[in-house]
C-alpha cells in the first residue's frame, strides 16, 4: 500500500524532467505526416547532430522523391545498394501502379514492414533497419537490412570445463536465442521479448518451455520486468538486482550463465531464462542454493564421479566459509581441541608473530582478496607480476620476516582455493565476503561465535526465496524425491521426475526403469 502510494508520488514528481529528458521520442504517439518533405524534416530534426545517421535522397523510378535513412555501421550498406537502390532507381518500362505492392512483392529484402508511427520508425532505424520514406506515402517502410559487427561464438571464459559443449553465449541477442533454438528444437520453446531502458532500449527476452514451466512464474517475471523504469540496461546484472526477491542478501537469487547447455538444462527443468542484449550472461530463475553448487559437468561425467565432486564441493564450501574462523577460534579459545603435537608445531611457528590470530587472519585474508581482485582487473601482461609479488613477497617473505605464521598462510591459501571450487563465481564471492564477519565472531566468542554466525546464515538462507521457491528447497522443506539431484547426482536413468517447480502435472521427464541391463547373450554357448 505504502509502496504504491510512494510510487504514485514519485511518478507525478518525475513526470516533468522525464519528458524533457527523452526528446528523442518526445511525442511517441505521433504518426507520420502525409507530406513527404515534412516527414524528412522531422527526421532531420530528430537526428540533429547525429553524424552517424545517413539520409540518402533519391528518385524512385526516376520521378518520385524518396529518402532512405540508416545508421552507418548498423546497416548492410551493400544490401542497400544492391537490393534497394538499384532496383528502385532504374527507370522501368512499366512503372508499377502501387508502390506498396512493389515493395512487398518485388523487393528482394527479407522483411519489409509498413510503419506508421514516428517512434516505431526511430526504433527501426536504431536497430539497424533502414527506413524508406516515399513522397505521397504517409508511412515509412522498415527494411530488414540490419547488420553489424558481432563477436563470433567463442568458448565461455568464466565457465570452462573438460567435457561438454564449447560454445558460449555472446553479446548478440539473436545469436543467443538461436543457440537455444538449436538445442531445443520443439516449438514449445517460447521466447517473449520486450524493450527496457529509456535510452538504451535494450531488448530483453524471456525464454521458457511451454508446458514445463509454471505459467504464473512467467507472468511474475514479465510483471517484474515491466516495472523496471531505468535509463539503461548494460548488463543482465541490472535486471538481476531489479527483479530479485530479497534485495538485501549476499546470495544471488537468480543464476547467471554464459553456457547455452546450462540454460537449456534449466529450461528443461521448468525454469525460465532471461536473455539480455549486449551481454553473454543470461539469467536463470527460479533457482535454489544448490543450483549454485552444481556444475554442468556433473551431468556429463559418470554419476559416481559427479557425486564425488559434488560432495567435494560441499566440503570445500564449508572450508571456504569456516576454515580461517575455526583456526582463529581454536587458537584463541580452544587450545585443548587441538592434538598436543599439532598444537606444539603451530605455536612454534607462531612464536615470532607479533599479532593475535584474529589480526593475522584478517591481514592475510584481505591481502588475498586484494590479490584476487587485482589479478582479475589487470591487463594480462602484468598479471604474472601480481602472482610473483603475491607468492614471493607476501607469502614467503612475510613468513620469513616473522610477521605472519606459516600455518596461517596455508589456511588462507586453502580457503582461497576452496572458494574457487564453487562453479558459480558469484556464490563464491558471497561466501568469501561472509568469511570476514565469521572471523570477527570467532575472535570474540570462539566456537560459540562461529555457531552463531552459521545459525544466522542458515536462518537467512531459510527465509530466502527465489520467485517463490524456498532457497534451500529440496533439503528444507524436505522433498525426498528431489534429493537425487542435490545430495548426489543420480544416474540419468534414475532421473525420472522433474523438480517440482512445474507443479504436479507433467512430473515425469522420461520413461521409468531405463537402467541399462543388457542380457549376456554372447556368453551363452
Amino acid at each position, binding site marked *: 500500500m505504502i509502496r504504491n502510494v510512494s510510487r504514485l508520488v514519485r511518478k507525478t514528481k518525475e513526470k516533468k524532467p522525464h519528458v524533457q529528458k527523452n526528446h528523442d521520442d518526445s511525442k511517441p504517439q505521433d504518426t507520420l505526416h502525409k507530406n513527404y518533405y515534412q516527414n524528412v524534416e522531422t527526421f532531420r530534426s530528430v537526428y540533429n547532430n547525429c553524424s552517424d545517421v545517413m539520409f540518402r535522397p533519391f528518385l524512385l523510378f526516376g520521378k518520385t522523391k524518396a529518402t532512405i535513412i540508416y545508421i552507418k555501421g548498423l546497416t548492410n550498406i551493400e544490401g542497400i545498394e544492391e537490393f534497394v537502390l538499384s532496383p528502385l532507381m532504374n527507370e522501368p518500362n512499366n512503372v508499377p501502379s502501387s508502390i506498396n505492392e512493389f515493395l512487398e512483392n518485388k523487393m528482394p529484402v527479407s522483411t519489409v514492414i509498413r510503419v506508421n508511427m514516428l517512434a516505431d520508425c526511430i526504433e527501426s532505424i536504431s536497430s539497424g533497419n533502414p527506413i524508406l520514406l516515399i513522397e505521397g506515402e504517409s508511412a515509412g517502410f522498415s527494411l530488414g537490412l540490419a547488420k553489424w559487427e558481432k563477436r563470433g561464438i567463442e568458448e565461455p571464459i568464466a565457465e570452462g570445463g573438460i567435457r561438454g559443449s564449447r560454445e558460449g553465449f555472446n553479446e548478440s541477442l539473436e545469436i543467443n536465442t538461436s543457440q537455444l533454438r538449436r538445442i531445443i528444437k520443439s516449438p514449445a520453446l517460447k521466447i517473449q521479448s520486450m524493450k527496457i531502458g529509456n535510452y538504451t532500449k535494450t531488448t530483453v527476452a524471456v525464454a521458457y518451455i511451454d508446458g514445463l514451466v509454471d505459467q504464473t512464474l512467467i507472468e511474475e517475471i514479465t510483471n517484474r520486468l515491466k516495472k523496471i523504469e531505468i535509463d539503461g540496461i548494460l548488463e543482465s546484472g541490472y535486471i538481476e538486482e531489479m527483479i530479485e526477491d530479497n534485495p538485501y542478501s549476499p546470495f544471488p537469487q537468480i543464476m547467471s550463465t554464459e553456457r547455452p547447455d546450462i540454460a537449456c538444462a534449466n529450461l528443461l527443468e521448468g525454469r525460465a531464462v532471461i536473455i539480455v542484449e549486449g551481454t553473454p550472461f543470461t539469467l536463470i530463475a527460479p533457482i535454489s542454493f544448490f543450483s549454485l553448487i552444481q556444475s554442468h559437468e556433473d551431468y556429463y561425467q559418470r554419476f559416481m564421479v559427479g557425486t564425488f565432486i559434488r560432495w567435494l564441493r560441499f566440503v570445500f564450501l564449508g572450508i571456504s566459509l569456516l576454515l580461517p574462523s575455526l583456526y582463529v577460534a581454536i587458537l584463541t579459545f580452544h587450545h585443548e581441541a587441538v592434538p598436543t603435537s599439532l598444537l606444539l608445531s603451530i605455536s612454534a611457528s607462531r612464536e615470532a608473530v607479533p599479532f593475535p590470530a584474529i589480526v593475522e587472519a584478517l591481514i592475510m585474508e584481505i591481502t588475498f582478496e586484494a590479490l584476487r581482485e587485482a589479478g582479475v582487473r589487470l591487463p594480462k601482461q602484468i598479471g604474472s607480476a601480481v602472482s610473483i609479488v603475491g607468492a614471493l613477497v607476501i607469502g614467503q617473505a612475510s613468513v620469513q620476516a616473522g610477521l605472519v605464521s606459516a600455518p596461517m598462510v596455508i589456511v588462507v591459501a586453502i580457503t582461497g582455493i576452496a572458494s574457487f571450487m564453487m562453479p558459480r563465481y558469484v556464490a563464491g564471492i558471497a561466501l568469501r565476503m561472509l568469511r570476514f564477519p565469521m572471523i570477527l565472531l570467532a575472535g570474540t*566468542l570462539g566456537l560459540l561465535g562461529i555457531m552463531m554466525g552459521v*545459525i544466522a546464515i542458515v*536462518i537467512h538462507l531459510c527465509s530466502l526465496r527465489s520467485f517463490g521457491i524456498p532457497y534451500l528447497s529440496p*533439503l528444507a*522443506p524436505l522433498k525426498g524425491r528431489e534429493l537425487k539431484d542435490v545430495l548426489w547426482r543420480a544416474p540419468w536413468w534414475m532421473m525420472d521426475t522433474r523438480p517440482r517447480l512445474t507443479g504436479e502435472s507433467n512430473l515425469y521427464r522420461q520413461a521409468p526403469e531405463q537402467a541399462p541391463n543388457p542380457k549376456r547373450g554372447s556368453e551363452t554357448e
Partner: protein
Amino acid sequence: MEKGKISALQMAIMMYPTIVATAILGVPSITAKYAQNDLWLAPIFASFIGYVTVYIAYKLHKLYPKQSVIQFSEYIIGRFLGKILGFLYLFFYIQVTGEIIREYAEFIVDSFLVRTPISVIMASMAFLCAFIVYGGIEVIARAAQLFFPLFVFPILILIILVLPDFEFKNIFPILADGIWPPMKGAIVPGGWFTEFFMIIFLLPFIKDRKKGMKYGMITAFAVMMTLVVVNLVVLFVFGPATASKVYPLMNVARYISIAEFFEHFESVVMAIWIVGTFIKISVFYYVTALSTAQWLNLSDYRPIVWPIGILLVVFCFWSIPNTLEIERFNIGVFPLYGFIVQTIIPLLLVVMAVFRKRKSKETV
C-alpha cells in the same frame, strides 16, 4: 497472524530438539541420583506423560482446529477466566524460556567461555532466536530440518566412538530396589515430556492435519529412545559415578580418543549442542510471541518479537537468581509446575470442552 504452513514431519523435527536438547545435558545425572543404575528405565516411565500430553493436545486441537489454547480457553471457561488462564500460559512460557536461556548461558560460561559476561551470551542467543522467530514458523521449521541431522548424527558418532570405554556390567543389578527408584527418577524427565503440550500452538499450522497425532507420538517415542540411549551410555561409561557429574554427556565426550590424535571433543559437542538449544529456544520464543499476540488480539505477532526478546533476557535474571537455583528449579519446581500447566489444566479443559459441546448439542 501466521500465514505459514508446515508439515507434520516438520513439526516432529521441530519438537524433537525442543525436548531433547536440554534433556540430554543435565537430566541423566539428576535421574541417576534417584534411580542409580536403573536410570535408563526412568525415561520410559516419564514418556507416558509425553504420550498423554500429546493425546490431550491433539484432542483439544480437534475440538478447536484453528485455534491455540490462548484462544479457545475463552470459549471453554468464559472470556474473563479464559484471559486469566491465557495470561498464566503467557507467563509460564516467558518464564520458562528465560530459564532455558539462562541454563544454556550458564553451561557455556561454566564450561567454555569462562571470562565472557553471561549477559553477552544470553543476549546473542536471544537476538538470533528473535531473528528466526521474525521469519515465521516456516523458517523455523526449515532451519530445524536442516539442523536435525547436524544434531543427531554427531550424537550417534559420539556413542560409537566411546564404545571402547563401555562397562556393560554397570547395568546390573536391574531393579535391585524394586520399581520405585526409577519411578522417582522419572519425575524430572517427566517435566520435559510435558513440554509436548506446545504442539497445540503448532498444530493449527499443519498441512496434513490428520498426521499431527501420529507424528506427535512418534516424536515422544523418539525422545524416549534418545534419553534411554543417552542414559545407558552415561551409565556404561561412569557407572555409579554418574550422579556426581553435572553434565555427564559432556564428560563422556572427554573419553574419546582416536589414534591418540583426535581427542578432546568437548568443544565440538558444545557446538552441536548449541544448534539443538537454538531450535529449542526458538520454538519456545515463537510460542511465547505467538501466544502473547493471540492474548492481546493482535493481527500479527512480528511487532512484539523484539520487545519480548528483551523481556526474555531480563527474565533470565529474574526467574533464576543464581546458578544453584537452576538445579533446584529443574528438580523441585518444574516437574510439578510444567505438569500442572501443560498436562493437568489442558486435561481439565478437554473434559470441560467435551462436556460443553455435548451440552450445546443437547440444547440444539
